[in-house]
């Protein structure tokens, strides 16, 4: 069955340079540097990436950072907590706008 998302396409990610070499290569160089051990550990970065993957709902990123988190020694409980962090921020981002709604409501009310 043909779908918009094909898991095999993840392995072809590097091929985006075929259509724009310079920018693609710059991006991958930057990408590699971001995930190197720095002030944050590789493990912390993997969990952040996993949470963001769920926020942007990218199936490729979810596959990639589920595996990466496991390869950084995370277990299922830690990984699900990261997803809850994403969900909490995402839910909070909607709810905090409730204050704007309340302000406007009050402005318009007697």
């Amino acid at each position, binding site marked *: 069955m043909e779908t918009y998302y094909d898991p095999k396409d993840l392995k072809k990610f590097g091929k985006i340079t075929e259509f724009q070499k310079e920018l693609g290569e710059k991006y991958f160089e930057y990408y590699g540097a971001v995930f190197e051990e720095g002030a944050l*550990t*590789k*493990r912390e970065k993997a969990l952040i990436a996993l949470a963001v993957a769920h926020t942007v709902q990218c199936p490729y990123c979810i596959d990639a950072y589920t*595996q990466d988190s*496991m*390869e*950084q*020694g995370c*277990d*299922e409980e830690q990984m699900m907590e990261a997803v809850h962090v994403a969900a909490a921020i995402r839910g909070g981002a909607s709810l905090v706008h409730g204050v704007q709604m309340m302000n406007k409501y009050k402005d318009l009310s007697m």
Partner: protein
Amino acid sequence: MSEIKTHISLKSQGNDFSEPTYQLQLLQSAGLTTFQDSLDRSGLFPFKPTKLEILQINLGKMCNQVCKHCHVDAGPDRKEIMTRETMLECLEAAKNSDCHTIDLTGGAPEMNPDFRWFVEELSSLGKKIIVRCNLTIIVANQKYHDLPEFYKKHNIELVSSLPYYSAGKTDAQRGEGVFAKSIEAMKMLNAVGYGVEGSGLIINLVYNPSGAFLPPDQTALERDFKSRLSRQYGLLFNNLFAITNLPVSRFLNYLVASDNYHDYMEKLVNAYNPVAAANAMCRNTLSVGWDGFLYDCDFNQMLELKLASDRQHIRNFNEEAISNRNIVISQHCYGCTAGSGSSCGGTTV
């Protein structure tokens, strides 16, 4: 995923994955760069041994556990164990060798009825002795409860598998209740001084991934293990070895049954590291099977890839005669050369 029986060995099930020929054919038919080609490109083929440092002796395939990833296909139903006669031949070889370490493995080596006698005899040689103890054997039966004292008496260095610092992942790989029993055994070992600073008694733990993925950075993981095991259980250990699962026997069966085989092999091949290859354990280690036959490593032993030499049995051991052999390789060898490398002593890079 098709159902995998986990309470008896593949051999007892008559499973194809217990057959070395079947496994080797599968490994060679994946259509990936051959290990020989990778070595050749790194200037390492033919693959030659360096100086023999470690004699690793497999005392048998009998074990009290049936771990899902076990490359030995060990279990309580496996009856292959080393006889005292073969042990005497190993002792003779060890005496005539300059190797500094004797590494005892299995199965659960302690289940061999001549295990303690053999350790006592080996002790007189003045070499370092490692026992690969699965921890749970210590609490499996009253006759093993004094093992910590026995190990201490002979200053044995212990290497013990504990794939995670929580029960879920550990039990999923090694069997229901294994984590709790391992913690109990570690407490007994700590009580006699193992892992305690200044005691001189060493216990190193082994992490291996509980699935189709590569191990994390060994140093970072050791920090996590130390912090978690100390905080939650008050346990001490010396070093953590992060080991890659090799596509042999039960782990190969799991990879195929879970449809992870091709991706995993591709990952290993893509992660080939020539430095890890140069430091591979088969170059300084000789593996002795339960029946006395010689191999370049324990994985080759399980695939029945005997030493490429006319000295194929420990009774004919001659260090010089085997020093110029070619190490026998196949596609499973990628497991030891991926990323930071993998050996019985952890990473190699």
